[in-house]
């Protein structure tokens, strides 16, 4: 099956600095892809090259199997939702949503039907006659979505669409977005710096670091097994430990076992003796900072007898210890 979007060794330079370096990306039909990473990683640049607002300095952009690298945005069948929503202020909601259809020369009857359907899908048919400035932020966002969906694009491109909403609304809209994508079966690419958003919404999570892919795959896989330190840190892993055998590993604090110094050494893990330098009470458990021969390890424990200065034995079970290579590598996509 032809992928909907394919990026073939795409690069983009700005004044001598590479924002995107030889990026390969495949987006399959019906798939929800998240481009995730810190500021400056190249995710928005990549999205804009897919949309046609930027031309790559090298490589090819293929849409539905056709080379679209030099094609202007209006000739690509895309639907884009901007962070600022970019609703046309001088048009009603209905005219906004119908705009793409009007540009394609869709006849009046069909235009009205499809506009109505799009508004229905986002649950805002009753606002058709309003002007954008009369809408709340969440409503504007949904209209922007309806406008992009109405044209039945090959791919829906979302540039941090939820960033301007408050926390509670963001979570609500995330669920709306998921529902709409499932219902329409549209292929979607979302740019975000919010890992929760990417974890919840995407089928394929692509983490970018300085213009290249640090890791990509199903959210569960990537989260469970970060391929390198950058990804682990980005996903909130806190422990980066160099073990006695020389490996650099990461392990989540909740997986570290905190034992008394006299405990028998469990098998199938790495055990070190450490002293506690901090104990932070959290209500249901506590977070302890343990230092062993220069290594700092964070762990959680429900043993409330633990105190600063106490000696402990730490066990890092093999099942939860993740090896981190010194160089970046990609996990094969499923």
């Amino acid at each position: 099956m032809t992928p909907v979007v394919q990026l073939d060794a795409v690069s983009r330079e700005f004044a001598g600095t590479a924002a995107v370096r030889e990026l390969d990306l495949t987006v399959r039909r019906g798939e929800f892809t998240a481009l995730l990473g810190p500021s400056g990683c190249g995710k928005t640049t990549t999205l804009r090259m897919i949309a046609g607002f930027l031309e790559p300095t090298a490589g090819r952009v293929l849409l539905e199997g056709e080379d679209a690298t030099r094609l202007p945005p209006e000739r690509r069948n895309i639907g884009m939702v901007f962070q600022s929503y970019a609703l046309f202020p001088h048009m009603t909601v209905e005219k906004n949503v119908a705009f793409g259809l009007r540009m394609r020369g869709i006849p009046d009857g069909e235009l009205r039907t499809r506009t109505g359907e799009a508004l229905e899908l986002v649950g805002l048919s009753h606002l058709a006659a309003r002007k954008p400035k009369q809408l709340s932020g969440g409503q504007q966002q949904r209209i922007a979505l309806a406008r992009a969906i109405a044209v039945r694009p090959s791919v829906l491109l979302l540039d941090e669409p939820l960033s301007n909403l408050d926390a509670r609304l963001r979570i609500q809209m995330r669920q709306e977005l998921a529902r709409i994508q499932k219902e329409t079966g549209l292929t979607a690419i979302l740019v975000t710096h919010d890992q929760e958003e990417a974890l919840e919404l995407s089928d394929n999570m692509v983490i970018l670091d300085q213009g290249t892919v640090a890791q990509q795959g199903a959210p569960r896989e990537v989260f469970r097994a970060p391929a390198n330190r950058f990804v682990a840190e980005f996903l909130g892993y806190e422990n980066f430990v160099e073990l006695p055998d020389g490996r650099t590993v990461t392990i989540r604090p909740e997986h570290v076992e905190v034992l008394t110094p006299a405990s028998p050494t469990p098998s199938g893990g790495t055990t070190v003796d450490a002293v506690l330098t901090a104990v932070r009470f959290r209500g249901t458990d506590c977070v302890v900072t343990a230092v062993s021969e220069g290594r700092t390890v964070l762990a959680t424990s429900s043993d409330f007898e633990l105190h600063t200065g106490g000696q402990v034995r730490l066990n890092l079970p093999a099942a939860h210890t993740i090896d981190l290579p010194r160089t970046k590598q990609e996990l094969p996509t499923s």
Partner: protein
Amino acid sequence: MAFLLGPILLVVAIGFSSGDTVEFPPPGFSLRWFDQALSNSSFQQGLLTSLLVAAAATLFALVLGIPVALAVQRHTFRGHKTVETLFLSPAIVPELVLGFALFQQLMVTMRITALGALLIGHTVLLLPYAVRVTGASLALSDPALEEAARGLGAGPLRTFFTITLPVMAPGIVSAAVLSFLTSFNNVPLSLLLKGPGISTLPVEMLNYVQFSYDPMVAAVSTLLLAATVGAALLTERLVGFNKVFSR
């Protein structure tokens, strides 16, 4: 405020005078000076010229200025600051100097008619207003609007006419009003760029005052004031005054 209004109200009062000379308080009330003003042929011709030049120069300045504003606001290209400064520079040059330079080049050297020179001169004079005011309204609008239109299938030209221009409309109206008034009221440029049968109303008024000092000039001034206030009120009804002058 009274400082500004006082002299103006004085002039208005004198316009309604029944006397033969400019005196305050006027001896009586009469509309004869208005009658004289409206039937004075030099004033009539001056008015027509002023209206024509103001309208045409405003149009030319906008047609030239809007693309410049677009280029400067929406694209950062090498030397865009220089281009912007170039188009804003007529506002800095003393008008008398501008007028004389244009007189020398256009009318003497190139032998262009007074009307032509007037049109060119006024257009140049108005360019800074066209570029600055429309530029300001563009700067306040979201550049993503145009990208959104392109993403939805509108080519660059269609995007300009369906999105950019309507969004800029209040800015364009305010630039037009400002430009029209600036051109109409202009004296230095119009003083130098005149010829047989071609001179603007302010210049004609200036001429008249040098030879006759009677309430007719006051009457003309009152009429001009009324027209300006009328234009302002019209702008308020059509577009909203604070929208126009806050952009």
